[in-house]
């Protein structure tokens, strides 16, 4: 089973992906699985344990279920303030 997702990139991930956002179709069922897929494809330097996930503008666990059409954001270590 696959789903189509909208992925948005920020900061170091945006630079390493070379895009601010993209639509993609994936078999990944969770944010963790999706991040490993994208990391392998694009060579992200941050390992999965250093990245949090948000779906539809809310923080979610890395093993949450992804649904058709979800907007997914991976959040590198923050540095506000």
């Amino acid at each position: 089973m696959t789903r189509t997702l909208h992925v948005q990139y920020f900061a170091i991930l945006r630079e390493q992906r070379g895009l601010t956002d993209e639509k993609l179709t994936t078999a990944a069922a969770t944010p963790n699985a999706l991040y490993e897929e994208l990391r392998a494809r694009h060579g992200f330097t941050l390992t999965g344990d250093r990245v949090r996930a948000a779906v539809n503008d809310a923080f979610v666990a890395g093993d949450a279920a992804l649904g058709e059409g979800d907007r997914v954001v991976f959040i590198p270590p923050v540095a506000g303030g």
Partner: protein
Amino acid sequence: MFKIAASPLDPAALQKELLDERAGACVTFEGWVRNHNEGQSVESLEYEAYVPLAEKEGEKILVEAREKFALVAAAGVHRVGHLRLGDAAVWVGVTAEHREAAFDACRYIIDEAKARLPIWKREHYVSGATAWINCATRGDHSAGIPPGPSKTG
């Protein structure tokens, strides 16, 4: 209200919105861009935010502060974009009847905001190098990227 702002902060205007005749104490925090971090000379920096979630999480922190401390009001703003030395990166303002609650709440809000808001910072050094703060990984060291903590206070 917690906002992400793309233009310079105006602390006097922000504080004016907190005026309330029930409040006896107003504590504010500002984070300023310093000229050095972890031994490197900083020239300028950029902040980038995931705006909808940063504002939602910032608001959640303000609600928590109002639950934990006896406040009259609390507000915060964080800059995004390109900032120069001395610019204000973040402003937090809190009012309360008594100063103890205002100090405790202001500190709580800035501590939580730094730890939780989806905001990222890239420093531009006098040397010409740049670095996304807190995002260094093994292998970056050859590029001289400091793994250091945040550069404002």
